């Protein structure tokens, strides 16, 4: 499959879960494919980073379900911030742990899971649909009943996968990518490299095999597909490029130029433009640490 094939499987109005965390191991090539599509009114469930920002800036998102949207080293995702302040996206604001619990409930096909997080805070105020549940046991404790976050489609990016959909992360954190896949009707994995099944364990121990083919409906090889977010150990976050992105987002004219330069063409065109950017950076600034 290609990134555009994955986007072709989506429909406007769907609920899409996106793996990774902040500006880390995001399926950006798949996000860029959505930017080239006419998809609208998506509900995006994410530990949000530039995935959410780009989709909001492109007008593809009706609602964001998250506990934050951040670029990690840049505290606030500029597009998401603007979208909120202009009222152009709806928000389901949850505690980070509640989001985890909602995905776990969906993955386990449960209607909800009880959780303490959220009690007493304004999360129930801004989410009037939330209910509490009382323990049926002697303690009688009242807890938030976090509803399952069921997804139509999950999109995740991993370091390696085989063609059948067995996927492997090689960095320090799996994030919640396996839960996103299990919570979804269908899941698509992009990866740095598709390898033969027999080659998977050459890259890492068995516990790096985060998703298996029962959880995955399609695999796409997208080298650099998480750029500009991190995908260690294949590459770190491209901080100069992320800074360029954030600066461009702050100014409409700059953003038009950024879009024309990086997002107007397909994925190959994006990767070429990124190489040009890296070369121009190498000329004007200190090297950003060769691998």
């Amino acid at each position: 499959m290609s990134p555009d094939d994955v986007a072709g499987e989506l429909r406007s109005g769907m609920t899409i879960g996106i793996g990774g965390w902040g500006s880390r191991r995001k399926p950006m090539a798949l996000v860029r494919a959505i930017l080239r599509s006419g998809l609208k009114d998506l509900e995006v469930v994410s530990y949000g980073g530039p995935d959410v920002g780009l989709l909001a800036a492109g007008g593809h998102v009706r609602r964001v379900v998250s506990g934050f949207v951040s670029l990690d080293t840049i505290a606030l995702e500029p597009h998401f911030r603007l979208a909120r302040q202009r009222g152009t996206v709806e928000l389901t604001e949850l505690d980070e742990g509640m989001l985890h619990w909602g995905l776990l409930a969906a993955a386990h096909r449960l209607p909800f899971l009880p959780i303490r997080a959220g009690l007493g805070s304004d999360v129930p105020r801004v989410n009037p649909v939330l209910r509490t549940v009382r323990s049926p046991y002697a303690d009688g404790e009242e807890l938030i009943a976090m509803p399952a976050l069921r997804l139509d489609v999950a999109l995740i990016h991993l370091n390696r996968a085989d063609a059948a959909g067995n996927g492997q992360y090689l960095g320090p954190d799996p994030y919640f990518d396996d839960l996103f896949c299990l919570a979804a009707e269908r899941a698509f994995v992009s990866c740095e490299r598709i390898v033969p099944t027999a080659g998977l364990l050459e890259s890492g121990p068995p516990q790096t095999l985060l998703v298996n083919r029962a959880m995955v409906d399609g695999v796409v090889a997208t080298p650099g597909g998480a750029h500009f977010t991190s995908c260690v150990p294949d590459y770190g976050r491209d901080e100069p490029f992320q800074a360029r992105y954030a600066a461009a987002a702050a100014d409409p004219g700059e953003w038009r130029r950024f879009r024309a330069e990086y997002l107007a063409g397909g994925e190959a065109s994006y990767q070429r433009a990124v190489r040009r950017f890296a070369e121009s950076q190498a000329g004007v600034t200190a090297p950003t640490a060769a691998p």
Partner: protein
Amino acid sequence: MTTPAPDRRPSPAVDVNKVLIEEQQTYIHEGPAGESPARARAAGAAAPGRAASGESGPSLAEVCVVACAEAWRGDGAILASPMGLIPTLGARLAQLTFSPRLLLTDGEAYLLARPDPGDRPAAGGAGRVVEGWLPYRRVFTMVAAGLRHVMMGAAQIDKFGNQNISCIGDWARPRAQLLGVRGAPGNSVNHPVSYWVPRHSRRVFVERVDVVSGIGYDRAAGLGPRAARFHELRVIVTNLAVLDFQTTDRAMRLRSVHPGVTTADVIAATGFPLAVPGGVPATRLPTAQELALIRGQLDPDGLRDQELA
């Protein structure tokens, strides 16, 4: 690989921490940058400009590092999660001195073993010893298990310790979108929470916060004793003072003032009536050993001053 590989090292601890602090500053810096006289005095009183010999008196940043470290005094083998550079230095100082069993992460997914006193941080984190694995899913488990004490930032905080990091203004269409509630609701009902406010002002210490993210003592009381049994706000460390909630009604109290700061300064920079006991003590100064650790081992490049700049 076709994309640039800017840096394969794990991000430094400030990676995650910076988020909250920058967000707080983003909001604070929106308005006219008012230099408070108390702030200037506090910065001046604690001898600025550290001599290369390391024998100069403590700076304001160093007083704050030690005040943050004190938040974790008495904590055993729990995860210390500092947000911001000065709290991070504080947690690491506490681990090196009076709270040696504390667990600390690298800001990503590793738990790093307590370094030997005298170890200078090597470039790129070389020489660090990984003692455990703590991806986000396990952080959430540690939170729910109560094995953690976090020091968060606060864009706003009220008299009972309700904290806001979500947004400013009407939630439905905020004047300033900040970070979102992040983990603050869960943190505050599951384990001890402290706060770090690098710019003590009436914009932060407010009568009423716009979105309750971390919950305060009045909200916790409203949940009843069972649901609130893990709620505990320890201290708030600011650039002027240390505050806590050791009052009969659990309203915020002035615990100590930093060198050069008066009680009146703190009252003037706080947007609600503060409980002020008679004879507020001075915040304790760093010991010679603590200063040596801060300057020689924990922050040899002196980045700590920038957080108060």
